[in-house]
């Protein structure tokens, strides 16, 4: 490197360091703005103010202004970006599943502005209805996510028996039946375009036979489906709301 290049390099480093030093810091301030950005909520538009928990402190965010002004409740409490994760209670966004805890990003929106980009997924709903013939089989549900599913806080458990289950966009549902021991997997693509309701004839029924030398076979599934059809007059799976 020539001496001229070296000088230019040093000048650039000095300029960058100087610019960083001039960036106003919020460390130790006792007032700051909290901005919440909802990302991927599928057109979710909050109708009014909604509550978030800033650390353990509940605060109300006005979606019109898009931020909330935090003021330290006492002189000892100072603002420090990144120390307080944001949590949105599930009931605040009824039609989306939000990430459980989000940490603030850097202060690029301005001094003392903690920006929380909360990732969320739109929810969809499956309503399971059943008309049994006699002693009804018990129904339980399991939500099954994948790598794309939002890391959400513990949610309300699905109902026991017929009812409605909410699912994130990337989740599928396993309807578990005790007698006969089988399960019905349902996902968004289980409902072909234009169909919002399925019957037992339309869905796959997988026999659960862990205590068998050959666990899976189409024949086993056929038995399970037939046995289930003998127990119920009707079983419907609906995404209609």
């Amino acid at each position, binding site marked *: 490197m020539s001496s001229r290049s070296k000088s230019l390099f040093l000048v650039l480093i000095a300029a960058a360091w100087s610019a960083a030093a001039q960036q106003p810091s919020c460390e130790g301030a006792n007032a700051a703005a909290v901005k919440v950005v909802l990302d991927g909520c599928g057109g979710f538009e909050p109708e009014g103010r909604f509550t978030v928990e800033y650390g353990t402190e509940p605060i109300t965010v006005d979606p019109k202004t898009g931020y909330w002004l935090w003021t330290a409740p006492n002189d000892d409490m100072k603002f420090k970006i990144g120390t307080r994760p944001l949590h949105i209670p599930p009931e605040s966004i009824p039609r989306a599943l939000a990430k459980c805890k989000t940490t603030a990003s850097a202060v690029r929106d301005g001094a003392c502005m903690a920006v929380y980009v909360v990732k969320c997924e739109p929810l969809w709903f499956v309503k399971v209805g059943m008309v049994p013939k006699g002693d009804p089989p018990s129904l339980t549900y399991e939500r099954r996510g994948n790598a794309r599913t939002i890391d959400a806080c513990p949610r309300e458990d699905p109902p026991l028996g017929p009812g409605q289950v909410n699912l994130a966009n990337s989740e*599928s549902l396993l309807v578990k039946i005790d007698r*006969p*021991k089988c399960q*019905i*997997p*349902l*996902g968004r*693509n*289980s409902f*072909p375009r234009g169909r919002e309701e399925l019957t037992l004839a*339309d*869905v*796959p029924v*997988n*026999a659960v*036979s862990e*205590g*068998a*030398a*050959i*666990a*899976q*076979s*189409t*024949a*086993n599934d*056929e*038995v*399970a*489906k*037939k*046995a289930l059809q*003998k127990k119920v007059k009707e079983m419907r799976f609906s995404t209609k709301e």
Partner: protein
Amino acid sequence: MRAALLALVILTAAVAAAQEIDIFDPTDFVDPRARGTVFQKDGLGVEENGMNFALVRVYGGRVFDYQWRNTSTEANPYFVNLTSSFYRGDRQFNLKLTKFSADSATSIPTLRTTFQAGQYFLASNIASRVLATVAVERNPYSSGEIHRERYQYEFGLQTDVEIRFPKPIGSLDHIDGSFIWMRRRISEHTYVDRLSYLYRFRERQRSNGRLQLNASLGFGAERANGWQCCLARGVFTATYIVPRIHVGVNAAFAPTFSPAGGGRRSHHEVAIYLDRTVLSWLGDIATK
């Protein structure tokens, strides 16, 4: 240590003819308890029969480089396979009809009829099965100048069992699959024995059960003038169940490795076929 050796013997040395079962042949094992059968305490025999069950399925498509038993035929036949099964208590009966349609220059049987009778039992609360098979095939070599019998037959036994190993083997604490022995009559006083083990991997499902991925590994040996070891074969099948019409679209790939003998040692069998259940009937609770 003994268990580890046993596992090694089963999975590798247990010699191996290629897989007994055709690339398109479905598994028909049904845990009798799923039909309401109640076994006796010792696992042999039943206290209650549960519900009778009948199942008829049809499979049709094409196989490329078809492996007929342990032989590579290099034929690309079309086939139709009709399988019917009847289950009652701890027993099962199968009748299978298989029709092949191939170039006349190839030497594969054009027609096969298979009858099977199965007996289920419980071993350590695991449903297991012994299946006896008798199959009659039209002899593909019967039209030559040398006089040969028009039909050939074979018979054998298959056991579907789960084997549990002690803990030190870790993930191999159980293996499930089938041990198969078949004897084929070639001519008077001449028989060929085939011995194989077929290990089935657990099914994987995608697209909410519409896409089913199955794999199995077979190992075996054949005895004609002496034991010939060791053929190995894997079968990888992807099945997509078309909604509404409930037709399965299947694609299967079965590489086979046969180190003994001359000629090509590896073969790559491929099958494309459709399947459909044409009858599925579950009776009422039957009394013994």
